[in-house]
């Protein structure tokens, strides 16, 4: 019995911090010692993991911060804001290294290549690549519509861009750029490469989820959502594709012959909309945060019920696992930030 119990885990509150701004998103440093936080009213803050945890506001973006992305293998992160700027921050001193305005439109999405050498930005219709120092490496030709999300695949050779009516995948090889397009006549809201490289998924504004087999180009459509599929994420082992358009999480199982024709796993329990979720790095746990002030921890391979549920002080806007998968940061719309540790029970 004792051995079985040790498999069971729970969330234990570790720290509660006042960010005093709407938590748009947060990003952990690769070593898990720091957390960068971006605020809807524009605050940029840095949390130092310690005893106690400390939160320090280090800068701001006028009119709101839109994205935060931590550079792999470094103590640096990038933020972007409604003011149109991208900023690079040094996390050791909490200082701004560079701030620049790539164009007229605000940068809505930022993504680092896995090796930390390239930063991709999506601003309006233009996706740009920047060096780690913030110098322009390449600007892709403007798309026909606004790029709402940008991401790298795991090897870092492909950049996926979510557009209206297509996912564009730019391949970057020795400064040569080739573009492949995965089309569907609806606004693509997310772009998600599976870790094993086999699939490309996107949540759509028309209430569908699409995934393409990247070797055959075959497009599969999953329906039955209540509305826009705004949250999409692959489990670390590429077995599950999680998605949400409301109070439930819909999980598609890619083991065996894949999810087509199967019924998805539905994780129910939230009583209001889920606004953020995240798969545990290196593990099977999955965390969700909702407008019902509830944080739910799931282990979908084992159970359809949450492993643990914790209440926080307000509507949740961001949930992020630390890179070692042992800790989660929970950001709230009213500005509180809570850190939970994953503990055995």
């Amino acid at each position: 019995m004792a051995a079985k119990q040790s498999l069971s885990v729970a969330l234990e509150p570790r720290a509660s911090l006042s960010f005093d701004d709407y938590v748009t998103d947060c990003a952990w440093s690769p070593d898990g010692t720091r957390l960068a936080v971006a605020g809807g009213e524009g605050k940029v803050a840095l949390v130092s993991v310690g005893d106690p945890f400390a939160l320090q506001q280090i800068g701001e973006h006028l009119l709101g911060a839109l994205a935060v992305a931590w550079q792999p293998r470094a103590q640096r992160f990038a933020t972007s804001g409604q003011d149109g700027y991208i900023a690079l921050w040094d996390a050791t001193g909490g200082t701004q290294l560079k701030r620049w305005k790539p164009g007229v439109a605000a940068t809505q999405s930022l993504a680092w290549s896995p090796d930390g050498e390239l930063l991709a930005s999506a601003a309006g219709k233009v996706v740009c690549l920047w060096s780690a120092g913030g110098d322009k490496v390449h600007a892709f030709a403007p798309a026909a519509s606004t790029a709402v999300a940008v991401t790298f695949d795991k090897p870092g050779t492909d950049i996926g861009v979510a557009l209206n009516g297509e996912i564009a995948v730019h391949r970057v090889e020795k400064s040569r750029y080739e573009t492949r397009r995965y089309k569907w006549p609806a606004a693509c809201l997310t772009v998600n490469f599976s870790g094993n490289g086999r699939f490309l998924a996107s949540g759509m504004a028309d209430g569908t989820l699409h995934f393409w087999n990247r070797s055959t180009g075959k497009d599969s459509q999953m329906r039955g959502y209540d509305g826009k599929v705004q949250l999409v994420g692959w489990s670390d082992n590429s077995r599950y594709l999680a998605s949400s358009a409301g109070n439930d999480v819909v999980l598609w199982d890619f083991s065996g012959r894949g999810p087509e024709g199967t019924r998805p796993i539905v994780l129910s329990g939230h009583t209001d909309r889920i606004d953020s979720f995240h798969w545990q790095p290196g593990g099977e746990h999955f965390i969700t945060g909702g407008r019902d002030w509830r944080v739910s921890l799931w282990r979908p391979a084992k159970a359809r019920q949450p492993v643990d549920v914790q209440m926080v002080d307000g509507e949740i806007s961001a949930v992020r696992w630390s890179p070692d998968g042992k800790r989660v940061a929970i950001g709230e719309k009213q500005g509180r930030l809570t850190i939970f540790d994953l503990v055995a029970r």
Partner: protein
Amino acid sequence: MSVTPSRVPVTVLTGFLGSGKTTLLNRILSEKHGKRIAVIENEFGEVGVDSELVIGAEEELFETNNGCICCTVRGDLIRILGQLMKRRDRFDYILIETTGMADPGPVAQTFFLDDELKNQFQLDAIVTMVDARHFEQHVDELNEPAEQVAFADLVLLNKTDLVDDAALARIESRIRGINGTAKIHRTKNADVPIEKVLNVGAFDLNRALAVDEAFLEPEYPFEWGGVYALAAGDHLLKTAGEHDHHSHEHGAHEHGHEHHDNHDHNDGHDHEGHKHEDLDVVLLPLPEATPAALNDAIEKAVRAFAEPATVVPCHGALPEIPAHYAIDVSHPGADFKLKIAKPGAYALFCEHHPAEFGLHLHGANPAAERRFASHHHEDDIASIGISDPRPLDPAKVNQWFDYLLKSRGQDIFRMKGVLNVKGEDRRQVFHGVHMMFDAQAERPWGQAPRVSNLVFIGRGLDRAEFEAGFESAVAK
């Protein structure tokens, strides 16, 4: 458990290119009115110039730079509204400026279709600005101005100082004909009390849908029909004005191609919309001069329009009824003799609204009349955006613009931009509407990158021509 605060009212501001929306926004963003207003702009162009044109208001200004609002912008609009809602000190009002080419319908519908928006925002009104000086011309040539007016809760009839009272009355009646329920407020230089724009509180989903349906009506070959009670004998169908044989001999009406160097907006220059052309009309006998009889005659009129028309020159006669004629209305003061053998009710259906030509039956008013949804299709209207950091030579810019306005003034509905002029530390901002053009120096560039951003919106514009023009103005 979640607390739902009161919804934030949203005003959608629409209006054809050059109607004065930017001027109004500048007022809203600069005047002291004690309200916190977030303005969302939507620009029909390849570069976002409007944010540069709104002077000193960066902190309140949000721009979605996204092409036509009918399609791709919805996602973005929702994004920006979501971003606004992340502010815990909330705005009192949100004002969405649609591009001049947009149909405001999709934006309005978004607030009803999207659950997220529905919970957080309350659409207050669609406000349409109308440029009194160019409205009649635009509405004849394009679909959008009529659509924008059709969707409006409030029409701001702007630039009333640039037209005479007769024109104002004609425009108002035309607006009324398109939208019988909108309030009309006359303004000069977009000077309207902000409460009038933001507190309309009149948005009515049913009305928006009803208008939408009207635009889905079947396509008729005519825009207007009227029924008259006529005595036997000759009647005269006349166009407005005095017949001028000179303009006849010279063919197409001269369009005043001299450049308006003095920027005089009151020079009486008139954009002649119809230098052609035959107007197709159908005459039908009706049992009585009533709206019901007119409605009953619609099908018959459609069939008659399908028959070949008899061409009638100026001063010609329309001897038969029923019949389909093509009357030459290219000259002011043209008249046509209508021979009525038997007293009674007669319907006249016109391809275009008769008011466009001042066409009327001398001494008779229609007992009933009706407009029909016309389906002009926007054809080759596009925008050309040029964004270039190279400094420009002021003299060469002037030459280029002079040439542009002379050669393409009629085709360019709107031009605006910010110029990086060599040796000038302030931004040169320009606006142009057709051949009228105004430029002034605005705030200094300061730390901002010096880049010229120009947008030209018009019909049949050739990008290569504009790029070559810009190239010719680059300082050597």
